[in-house]
């Protein structure tokens, strides 16, 4: 049986476990119907031209975790930022782990979706937000919606600004040879609130895990959200990250994506600007090697006047790794005075590495400022010579230049702790000790 058929057939079994009377069950059933019609995307789809899921969906996966072997804190501690006080929502093979998590309902809700679905008091919020900005024509999003069951649920009420970042961690133990995970996250920052979120997917050992994750983020008036995605998984893991962000007026949302690991990673990052004076920021550093593949597929939908968007992605590719950047900016007719900036710069370290970069601008307003640029090149030889004349060996010199190339992305990382962590990940990824505290 093909895996796609298995997904359709297993829905009946899935229904045994959930509350069928919950209003969102209609969303699930509708989404399943759409997925049945749409199927998995193929290379025929314009936005999947350079990334193929074929070899992945030919395999078979378990859709749920069987064993409940607990994960010890010491096994996973190193993947967290070491602020002990910060809130954590941790899932092990798709199942919430209260033992590893630190959640709250005190003054804000930092908990799990299954809890929110089961309680009446969340009904109106879920009705207002759940599945409201997910486009109907994206089959992977439909697939995720149809199996909605668990994920992070974060609601930051008006004017609340938690000090520490919230960490969302998806751990895959490898207790099953192959597993298909579909976390569903809902994040709402109400008026004048501010929140910082770090999301990470981590396998504990080599095994075939595919995560088709979907995150809806709502920034109400004047809300500030900083979202960091750390993608540094083992080379046997696949991640399809579908993120949809809806912003109301005066809100400011930024998403930083650090892609250093994984076998295949596809980021579908979509911003919808629903009011005036909105700021949207999309930044990323991608450093790949061996046969890794990362695809950044972004959309910024300027639907209202006087808004800004700023995209800056840097990529560094060694061995036979492949990078894809497909950045779409839509400016509706009403969205006058839009200021949209997009930049994608890449360095190919080896002749066998490859980058496909494609800016796509659709502008229907006439008074806008839109700029875009992409480059693919090698490290500057003169710069390399300069460093070498200072006694810095080739390998370290290359690492230093690569670091310098990617550096401006890190400038906007606000949490010092996180910045240090990313810095050390980069140094480790580049395989050298630069001899100083980055």
């Amino acid at each position, binding site marked *: 049986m093909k895996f796609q058929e298995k997904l359709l057939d297993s829905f009946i079994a899935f229904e045994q476990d959930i509350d069928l009377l919950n209003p969102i069950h209609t969303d699930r059933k509708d989404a399943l119907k759409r997925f049945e019609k749409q199927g998995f995307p193929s290379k025929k789809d314009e936005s999947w031209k350079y990334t193929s899921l074929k070899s992945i969906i030919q395999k078979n996966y378990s859709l749920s975790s069987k064993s409940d072997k607990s994960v010890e804190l010491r096994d996973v501690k190193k993947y967290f930022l070491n602020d002990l006080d910060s809130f954590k929502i941790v899932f092990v093979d798709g199942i919430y782990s209260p033992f590893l998590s630190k959640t709250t309902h005190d003054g804000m809700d930092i908990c799990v979706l299954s809890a929110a679905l089961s309680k009446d008091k969340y009904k109106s919020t879920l009705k207002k937000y759940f599945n409201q900005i997910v486009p109907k024509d994206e089959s992977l999003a439909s697939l995720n919606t149809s199996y909605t069951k668990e994920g992070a649920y974060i609601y930051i009420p008006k004017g609340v600004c938690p000090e520490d970042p919230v960490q969302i961690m998806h751990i895959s133990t490898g207790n099953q040879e192959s597993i298909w995970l579909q976390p569903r996250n809902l994040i709402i920052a109400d008026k004048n609130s501010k929140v910082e979120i770090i999301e990470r997917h981590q396998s504990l050992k080599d095994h075939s895990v595919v995560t088709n994750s979907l995150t809806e983020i709502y920034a109400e008036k004047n809300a500030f959200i900083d979202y960091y995605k750390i993608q540094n998984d083992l080379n046997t893991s696949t991640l399809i990250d579908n993120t949809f962000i809806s912003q109301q007026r005066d809100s400011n949302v930024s998403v930083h994506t650090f892609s250093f690991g994984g076998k295949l990673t596809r980021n579908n990052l979509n911003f919808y600007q629903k009011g005036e004076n909105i700021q949207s920021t999309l930044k990323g550093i991608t450093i790949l090697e061996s046969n890794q593949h990362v695809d950044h597929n972004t959309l910024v939908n300027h639907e209202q006047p006087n808004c800004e968007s700023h995209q800056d992605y840097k990529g560094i590719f060694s061995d036979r790794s492949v990078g894809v950047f497909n950045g779409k900016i839509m400016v509706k007719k009403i969205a006058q005075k839009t200021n949209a900036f997009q930049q994608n710069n890449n360095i190919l370290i080896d002749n066998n590495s490859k980058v496909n970069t494609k800016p796509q601008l659709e502008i229907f307003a006439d008074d806008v400022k839109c700029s875009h640029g992409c480059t693919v090149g090698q490290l500057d030889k003169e*710069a390399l010579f300069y460093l070498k*004349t200072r*006694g810095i060996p*080739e390998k370290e010199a290359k690492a230093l230049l690569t*670091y310098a190339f990617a550096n*401006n992305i890190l400038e906007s990382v606000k949490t010092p702790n996180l910045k240090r962590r990313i810095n050390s990940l980069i140094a480790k990824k580049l395989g050298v000790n630069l001899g100083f505290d*980055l």
Partner: protein
Amino acid sequence: MLEINNLHCQIEDKPILKGINLKINKGEIHAIMGPNGSGKSTLANVISGHEDYEVTKGSIYFKDQEINELSPEERAHEGVFLSFQYPVEIPGVTVTNFIKTAINESRKSKGQDEMPSSEMLKKIREKASLLEIDSNFLSRSLNQGFSGGEKKRNEIFQMAMMEPELAVLDETDSGLDIDALKIVANGVIKCSNENNSVLVITHYQRLLDYIVPDFVHIVMDGKVVMSGDKDLAKKIEEIGYDWLKKDNS
């Protein structure tokens, strides 16, 4: 210290140096002058081991060891320093961190431990004050947004930190106003002693008023066409290079 014999080199099959001879002893300051395109900067790059330049004939000896085949970093570890005409910008790496890395990599190559932080800090302060560099400057990204003068001062600061045995200064004076020129020249003088040597490459005699050379060499069309003392530089300043062209042909 440095001995260059009949050095020929080319870049992409285009010959640039066509038989350079040059001998610099310990404790000496030499200057090289010459018109644009004569091969001055090429010579500086070749001494430091730039890989784009192919040495087709001749040899470079440094401290009695032939260094033709050494990489730029190996030459640096031996004690060769090149001050760049156009220093490269390295965003995200501060001046302090850069110089720390450079010094510790050189020490590593000699099997020494890293320099203790307190010693490093003391040295940085000392050399920075020599070049009238303030501490804010040291925490800026290397050369990024630096003025021409700041870049050159930073080059000489790196030289002072690395204490090379041979410093090659490639047009360190270009783009400097007179005050910056004095600071830079003063830095070079303070660092020079009987155990090291300096090779100054310049267009203008002006710098040589401050860094007074023991020898001046004129390079034209890839060869040293005349050598003399500091008065030769003054003569060039006054009457240019044309008379040498005639002499040469």
